[in-house]
């Protein structure tokens, strides 16, 4: 059992939790994740480590309320306990030797991209961050990202920052002469796919971070498998970071949609239950 010590709404449906998890905070590194189960009937969901403090034992995770389990997690507040939190899991990002990087985040992916940018910044790399959101209301972590990088913010509808896609902004920077040795892209699979296609043209090494469906997070179920360079890999133990030029993104997108109808059904139940509770 792990206690929530801080809860902060970052944008609509996007929330940061700070947990009192000294064992995990002591070990966690950028790129790793935890598996969390809010209550007995819930699923085990993977959430990337967003921040940690080795001295205080604080561990931050950021989630978006999309399915039933995140909705149930969202019912918990400061002082409440989360039934199970296991981690840190997965391999830490290999940021060794990177001098000049572009870190591209899409939507909630910025919550995962930000610790990578911060870690690179602390290692002395020069970092450009390109953060893309659908619209102004969904922008998160702007101050944090600015503090560790030269930030370019784009929105799909132009309501904040520059109007456009992260790939447009990245291409512009590359063409303007930014000599990146590495691009890190974290966000929806479709975004990572197009960033990887772009950087392939320019021959820039590209790391993407996978967030597939997963149960145990220790290599036991194979639910998180994906094809990398023609071989089957498990995101939980072989990743979550992979070479973006080698990942089969189309397969990944199909697999991520595997339970969409079941998830919608569960959400309907959840809302009905809460409506009943509200009326009762």
């Amino acid at each position, binding site marked *: 059992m792990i206690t929530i010590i801080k809860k902060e709404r970052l944008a609509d449906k996007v929330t940061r939790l700070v947990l009192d998890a000294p*064992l*995990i905070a002591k*070990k966690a590194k950028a790129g790793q994740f935890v598996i969390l*189960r809010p209550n007995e*009937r*819930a*699923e*085990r969901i993977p959430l990337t480590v967003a921040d940690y403090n080795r001295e205080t034992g604080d561990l931050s995770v950021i989630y978006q309320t999309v399915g*039933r*389990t995140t909705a*149930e997690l969202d019912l918990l507040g400061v002082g409440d306990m989360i*039934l*199970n*939190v*296991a*981690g*840190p*899991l997965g391999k830490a990002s290999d940021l060794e030797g990177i001098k000049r990087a572009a870190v591209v985040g899409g939507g909630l992916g910025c919550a995962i991209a930000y610790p990578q940018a911060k870690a690179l910044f602390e290692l002395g790399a020069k970092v450009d961050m390109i953060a893309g959101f659908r619209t102004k209301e969904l922008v998160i972590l702007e101050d944090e990202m600015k503090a560790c990088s030269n930030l370019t913010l784009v929105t799909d509808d132009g309501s904040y920052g520059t109007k456009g896609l992260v790939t447009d902004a990245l291409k512009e920077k590359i063409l303007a002469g930014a000599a990146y040795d590495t691009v890190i892209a974290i966000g929806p699979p479709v975004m990572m796919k197009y960033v990887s296609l772009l950087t392939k043209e320019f021959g820039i090494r590209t790391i993407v971070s996978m967030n597939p469906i997963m*149960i*145990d*997070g*220790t*290599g*036991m*179920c*194979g*639910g998180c*498998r*994906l*094809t990398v360079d023609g071989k*089957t890999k498990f995101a939980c*133990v072989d990743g979550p970071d992979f070479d973006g030029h080698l990942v089969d993104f189309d*397969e990944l997108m*199909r*697999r991520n*949609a*595997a*339970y969409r109808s*079941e*998830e919608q059904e*569960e959400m309907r139940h959840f809302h009905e239950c809460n409506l009943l509770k509200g009326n009762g």
Partner: protein
Amino acid sequence: MANMQQNKTPMKEQLPNIRNTNWDEVACGYTAEEAMHEASRCLGCKNPACVKGCPVSVKIPEFLSEVAKGNFENAYRIIRSTNALPAISGRVCPQESQCEGKCVRGIKGEPVAIGRLERFCADYMMQKQQKASEPAQNGEGKIKVAVVGSGPAGLSCAGDLVTRGYHVTVFEALHKAGGVLVYGIPEFRLPKTIVENEIRTLEAMGVEIMTDMVIGRVLSVDELFDMGYEAVFIGSGAGLPRFMGIEGENANGVYSANEFLTRINLMKAYREEYVTPIRKGRSVAVVGGGNVAMDAARSAKRLGAEHVYVIYRRGEAEMPARREEIHHAKEEGIEFLFLTNPTKIGVDEKGNAESIRCVKMSLGEPDASGRRSPVAVEGSDFDLAIDTVIIAVGTAPNPLIRMTTPGLETDRRGCFVTSDGNTTTREGVFAGGDAVTGAATVILAMGAGRDAAKKIDEFIKSK
């Protein structure tokens, strides 16, 4: 005078067409009268072959003689003195190739139903709520030993170490203790209340269990030594699923047996009140011929499948599953395709599995393992329409501990190298069960856990 009835006393079972729609236990157990009657079939051999067939050397004639007299509590104590988890082994051991396979009564007629009687004694005690366990022991001041993994190897090792006077902490990676007993073996074959009860008994004896502790990530083996543990037992099992490497294997609707069974058993996907999603296939292909394949097939049936096919590349006689599981599966309407091997999974435009292509096999010359190796029959390909595929072709040990523990050697299959079955290449680190042997049975893992406990005791005393 022994009861000379030739056949085993039958045990009541749920009817096949009723049980394949529910998750309750298939076999209902003996009554006290049935147990006494069956136990009296034992001849009480002076030199009992059955005991030699048992990986944990249960004193079989001794406990059977107590059962025959109606002294069930005494019988339980005798079993419990060498077997930490009798309610479990009585249900899942392959008795036909162990104790019962050696029973002299089996030469002419059926062997004594040792497994059913072991189960009876354990269940009897559980119902009486008087666990024959030692009182909880205070761990203070005792020498600390860490056990990694709470499956059959870890639990049996922990039970023995606590009895030997150590302070034992079991570290489990998942949120619930029990390992394969809770994530792998289904409710209808091994009710989870039975597993919980056996674990509670161990806790009452003083075993400390910590969940969500992924050793190799949260803590390393070296850190366990830093924390004051004088020896570490690794019973991390063989939990890494193998796939076949055929086209279409990453399609939606294709599961490893581990994922399919974990969603059902650990995550309770079959119960309304749990959130876990699972595909309820109408037509399901299960690839493989072991106990795990039987468990997956019978679970798919219970989720409501109309057709469940077990596809196995060798013949029925070569199947590694327990006879009883094959028998039960057939009764429940599982369709077996023997001498058949999948070569490709057909995928629709949305990425879902829609068919499985198979080829017929014939058995050729015996291979290195002594089993006749299957050879594809040319031109015998056919397609089977399915919507779900479950791959149950075996598992390998998880690499997490090997990768994070310097000096701990493994062989090319990823199994820990040991000098005597338990002692690894790192001083103070012992291992046992599937992590050493590769995927095997619950009882062999329990036997290995016991052996390791003895070696850990010797190691610590010799320091």
